[in-house]
C-alpha cells in the first residue's frame, strides 16, 4: 500500500511528558517525536518507569503535556473540546474499574456516550455498533454476564469492545496484556492487530512484551530517554536499537530471533 496516500492520524513533535510542580516540572520523558498513520498498529516499549504510561496518558489528554505538540488529524490536541476528543480517541487504561457490577452489555454501551442524547438513549445505530464491537472481540454470547464473572482476558476484551463501540479513529491502550498468560497475551495482541488492519484504526499501546511486539507491530517507539527511536521493527533491529533497551548485565538482545536471552 502506498504510505503517502494514508492520512496522518497522530503527529507528536518534541513532546515532553511528566508532572507540573511548583519547583519546576518533573519531566518523566522528553524529546519524543513520531507519527502514525491510519491503520497503523504500534507499540511503545521501554523499561519500567521510563514514561510509557505517562506518554500514553498525555496522548489521551488524561494529563497535560509539559511541552511540545500533539496533533490529531493536523489539529492541536489541546484545541479539541471534550466531545470532539471523545469522538477521536478511545482509551483502555490499567486502572481498575470503579465497579464490576456492570454487565458486559452495560459496559460496552457506555462507549456510545459521545453520540447519545442528554440522558443516553440508545438508537438503532448505537445498538448496531455495540453488537458489532462485541462480535469483533468474540463476546456476543456473553453480553448478559456480569464483569466480576469474567476472566482477566475476557475483561480486557470487554474494555476493547467498549473502545470499539466509541468508534474512534485512534485507540490508545495502556499495557493491555498485563496479568495474562502467553497464550492470552498473543490472543489480545492478534485481536488488536486485526482490528487495526481490518477496520483501518490507528492503535497505539504500551507493553513489556518486546518480542511479541516485534512480531506483530507495524511501528514501534523505543523509549530510552536518549534517542527515543521510532520505526518499523525490522529497521530498529538493523539499527541495533533494542540492544540498549535494557542494561546489559543480565539479558541481551538476539537480532536473529528477535528475542532477549539471559547472559550466561
Amino acid at each position, binding site marked *: 500500500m502506498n504510505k503517502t496516500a494514508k492520512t496522518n492520524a497522530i503527529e507528536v513533535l518534541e513532546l515532553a511528558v511528566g508532572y507540573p510542580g511548583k519547583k519546576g516540572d518533573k519531566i518523566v520523558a522528553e524529546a519524543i517525536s513520531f507519527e502514525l498513520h491510519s491503520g497503523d498498529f504500534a507499540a511503545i516499549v521501554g523499561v519500567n518507569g521510563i514514561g510509557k504510561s505517562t506518554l500514553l496518558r498525555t496522548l*489521551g*489528554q*488524561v494529563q497535560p503535556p509539559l511541552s511540545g505538540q500533539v496533533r490529531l488529524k493536523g489539529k492541536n490536541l489541546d484545541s479539541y473540546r*471534550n*466531545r470532539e*476528543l*471523545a*469522538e477521536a*480517541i*478511545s*482509551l483502555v*487504561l490499567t*486502572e*481498575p*474499574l*470503579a*465497579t*464490576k*457490577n*456492570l*454487565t458486559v*452489555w*452495560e*459496559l460496552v454501551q*457506555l*462507549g456510545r*456516550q*459521545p453520540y*447519545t442524547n*442528554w*440522558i*443516553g438513549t440508545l438508537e438503532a445505530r448505537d*445498538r448496531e455498533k455495540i*453488537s458489532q464491537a*462485541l462480535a469483533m472481540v468474540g463476546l*456476543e454470547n456473553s*453480553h*448478559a454476564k456480569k464483569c*466480576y464473572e469474567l476472566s482477566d482476558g475476557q475483561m480486557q476484551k470487554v474494555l476493547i469492545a467498549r473502545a470499539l463501540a*466509541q468508534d474512534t479513529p485512534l485507540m490508545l491502550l495502556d499495557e493491555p496484556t498485563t496479568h495474562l498468560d502467553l497464550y492470552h497475551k498473543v490472543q489480545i495482541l492478534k485481536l488488536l492487530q486485526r482490528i487495526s488492519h481490518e477496520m483501518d484504526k490507528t492503535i497505539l499501546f504500551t507493553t513489556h512484551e518486546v518480542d511479541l511486539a516485534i512480531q506483530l507491530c507495524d511501528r514501534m517507539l523505543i523509549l530510552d530517554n536518549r534517542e527515543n527511536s521510532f520505526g518499523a521493527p525490522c529497521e530498529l533491529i538493523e539499527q541495533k536499537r533494542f540492544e540498549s533497551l535494557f542494561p546489559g548485565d543480565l539479558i541481551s538482545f538476539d537480532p536473529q530471533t528477535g528475542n532477549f536471552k539471559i547472559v550466561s
Partner: protein
Amino acid sequence: MNPKKSYRLPFLLLALLLLAAFLLNTGLGSVAIPLKDTFNAIIGGTVAEDSWRYIIWNYRLPKAFTAILVGAGLSLSGLLMQTLFRNPLAGPFVLGISSGASLGVALLIMGSGLISGWVGSLLINDVTLAIAASAGSFLVLLAVLGVAARIKDTMALLIIGLMFGSVTTAVVTVLSYFSNAEKLRQYIFWSYGSLGNLSWPQLGLLGVILLLGIALSIISIKPLNALLLGEHYARSMGTSLQRSRYIIIGATGLLAGAVTAFAGPVAFIGLAVPHLTRQIFDTTDHKVLVPAVILYGAILLLLCDTLAQLPSSSYVLPINAITSIIGAPVVIWLLVRKRKMIF
C-alpha cells in the same frame, strides 16, 4: 441481540407498595381510626368523628408526606454519593453535610443559652432551627466544594468530608460541655430526628427544594453512568468532569441539607436504600436506579415511621433510632452475604 430489560413490573409493584405504606402510615397512630374513615378523610368523604378528620389532615398527612420526602431525598443523595465517590459506603453523612447541620443547630441552641433571659429563648423555634441547620450544612458543603476545586482526587474529598464531620462533632461536644441541662436536652431531642414537626407551608418548601435536587440528579444521569468506569474513562467519553461533579455535589447538598434542616439527622437511609434497591433492580443504569431509590426510600421511611409511632399507644420513638436499628443490620447482612459491597 437486544438485551434491553423491562423494569415495568418492579416499578408497578413499588408504586403499589408506596400507596399501601402511605395508607398504613396515615391509618395507624396513637388514636385508632378505621382504615375506611382514614381513606374517606383523605378524599374528603364522610368521617364518623370530626376530630379524626382534624387528626388526619393536621398531623398524619403532613407526617406521611414528610416521611416520603425525607426518605426519597436521603436515598437519592446516597445513590449520587456512592457513584460519585465510587464507594459503596458513601452516603450523605460522609460528606459532612449532616454534621454541618448539627453544628448549626448546636450553635443556635447552646449559644442562645449564653444570651441571658428571654431574648435567648425567643431565638429558638422551628424556623430558626431550620435556618441554622441549612446554614450549617451549606457552609460545610461550600468548604467541601472549595476543596473539590483544588483537589482532583475524589477519595481525598471523601476523607476531607469525614474530617469536617469529626471537627463538627468535636465542637458540638465542647459546646454541650459548657451548656446547661435544658439546652442540652433540647439539642439531643433535635438530633433524634423528627418527621412530625412540619406544617403544610414548610412541607411545600421542602418539596420544592427536593424537586430541584431531583431535577439536578436527572440531568446528571448520563455522567453518573460514565462515572461507573472511573473519572478518566468518563472524561474520555466526553463527560465534563468538573461541571458534573459540581452538579452532583450540589444536588446532594440540596437533598441531604434540606432534609436534615427540616427533619433532623436521619441515619442509614441514604446508605442502605441504594443497596436494597440494587437487590430488586439488577442494573447499574441510573436511568432506572434514580426513580427506583426515590420510591424505595419513600416506602422504607413510611414503614419506619409507622413502627416509630407504636400504633395504638401514645409513645413515639425517635425516627433516627428506628432507621438505625433497621439500617445497621441491613448493611451487615449485605456485607456478610455478598462478601463485598458492590455498587
